[in-house]
């Protein structure tokens, strides 16, 4: 598959005005490639560098060492800055702090307007984007009348109206209630499956990470585990050691295995868990 995002020996620290390091190394010699069309979840406890890595993916931060490539463009190439940002859209945690305009459709139009597209094209993209996230009926509403999940879907629509090849979501569900979380996850999965948009999902929820094709676990500025979710979550002890959880069903299976019950350690979905336990009982 085609490489969309590639980090080569990436390292980063914040610098002060004179260019001296103003923070410890946040990313340490990190190498990573992400394929176009994949759905990748990034896990790690606070301060492990996952948000910093995300901000490198659309040149909000630039590496202090190594290289970051987006669709073959070096993020340090200032002339291509807007091309990179058009390739990789970002959605943040707080939906309130991403919405610019007082009317839903005006906000979705903000990105395409910045790209300097003709008005008819913008109209078309705005309508398509709102339909894709299922918010078309709300196009004339004021954002503050909407629920958290709806606002976050508007923020996502604002990004897909720019037709990016990849969306990086930095804990998009952290401030939402369970219903909003479900809505947003459904939208993200749909964008990945139906539109083929590459998804990089940074999250604290293991159940969300379990839905990805690939899970990257970060610890202290580098990659600790990088594999299919079943494989990653089978390392229960290693995950616990760095302060992370595994999905509840995986933990249950782990505990049962500790008791000597022979179950597959690669179970991450509840349905599969129920089936395996029933089979074992039979």
């Amino acid at each position, binding site marked *: 598959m085609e490489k969309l995002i590639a980090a080569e020996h990436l390292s980063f620290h914040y610098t002060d005005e004179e260019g001296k390091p103003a923070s410890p190394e946040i990313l340490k010699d990190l190498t990573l490639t992400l394929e176009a069309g994949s759905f990748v979840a990034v896990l790690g406890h606070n301060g492990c560098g996952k948000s910093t890595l995300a901000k490198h993916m659309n040149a909000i931060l630039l590496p202090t060492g190594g290289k970051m490539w987006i669709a073959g463009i070096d993020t340090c190439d200032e002339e291509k800055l807007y091309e990179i940002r058009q390739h990789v859209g970002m959605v943040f945690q707080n939906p309130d702090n991403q919405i610019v305009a007082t009317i839903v459709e005006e906000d979705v139009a903000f990105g395409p307007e910045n790209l300097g597209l003709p008005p008819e094209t913008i109209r078309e993209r705005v309508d398509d984007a709102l339909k894709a996230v299922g918010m078309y009926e709300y196009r004339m509403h004021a954002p503050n009348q909407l629920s958290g999940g709806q606002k976050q879907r508007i923020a996502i629509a604002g990004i897909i109206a*720019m037709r990016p090849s990849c969306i990086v979501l930095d804990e998009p569900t952290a401030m939402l209630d369970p219903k909003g979380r479900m809505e947003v996850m459904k939208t993200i999965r749909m964008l990945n499956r139906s539109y083929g948009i590459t998804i990089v999902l940074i999250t604290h929820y293991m159940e969300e990470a379990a839905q990805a094709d690939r899970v990257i676990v970060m610890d202290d500025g580098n990659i600790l585990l990088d594999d299919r979710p079943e494989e990653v979550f089978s390392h229960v002890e290693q995950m616990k050691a760095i302060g992370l959880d595994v999905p509840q069903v995986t933990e249950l299976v782990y505990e049962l295995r500790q008791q000597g019950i022979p179950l597959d350690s690669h179970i991450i979905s509840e349905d599969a868990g129920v089936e395996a336990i029933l089979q074992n009982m039979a």
Partner: protein
Amino acid sequence: MLKDITIGQYFPGSSPVHRMDPRFKLIMTLLFIAMLFMGQHLYSICFGIVFCILALALSRIPVKLIWKSIKPLIPVLLITAILDLFMVDSGDVYLHWHFLKITAGGVRTAVLMVTRIIVLLAGSSLLTYTTSPIALTDAIERLLSPLKKLHVPVHTFAMMMTISLRFIPTLLEETDKIMTAQKARGASFSEGNLLQRAKALVPILVPLLVSSFHRAEELATAMECRCYRGETGRTKMRQLHAAGRDYAAMTVTLLLFTGAVAVKIIF
């Protein structure tokens, strides 16, 4: 309590006034204000009143709403009327008691001022009632765009206005939340003298200010992520088109304005 604030409140509708080009509405409102304050003669404000009644009728905004925007200003109107009544000293004397004196000039000025203010409020609140804030800032940006040649950052101002309008409800909600949190800890906002009440507001304003800075920073990052680079290379989804009704309305307004000017010259 905070929900009652109606700054720039907009009532969606589809009346001819709602559908009018916001640029025209803005200019017409300015002409209307000029009409009202031009002459010192009772006749001269008649043109403003005619304009106001016409616009009100066309907008189909209920009179109750207009009354709502006038009601809080009744004390101001009363004070204005009383001051004019006793302070202006010209023409026939109707009443003279110690140092108080009511004259024909005083009565006339009082009536003129009160009518003026009421009509002004009714007419200009119609602008925000029938125009969405975003259309209004858009209109201001376009009307002021000649100033760009003088390097006046018109776009930046318009963007600042849009963002302020966008965050009014968000910050109101947040203020409510902080107030509730402080009340839960025993703070009181409605007791004590003025100074004590003002002091009670500090624990609300400080967290509000801090969170506004956080919001500003996050919003700036999000805007950069969406390729915002100021005005450079930016287009607009919504294009403003002046239609026949806009020109017709403008013609009527200009006629009324000319009438007001004529009255000023003649009398």
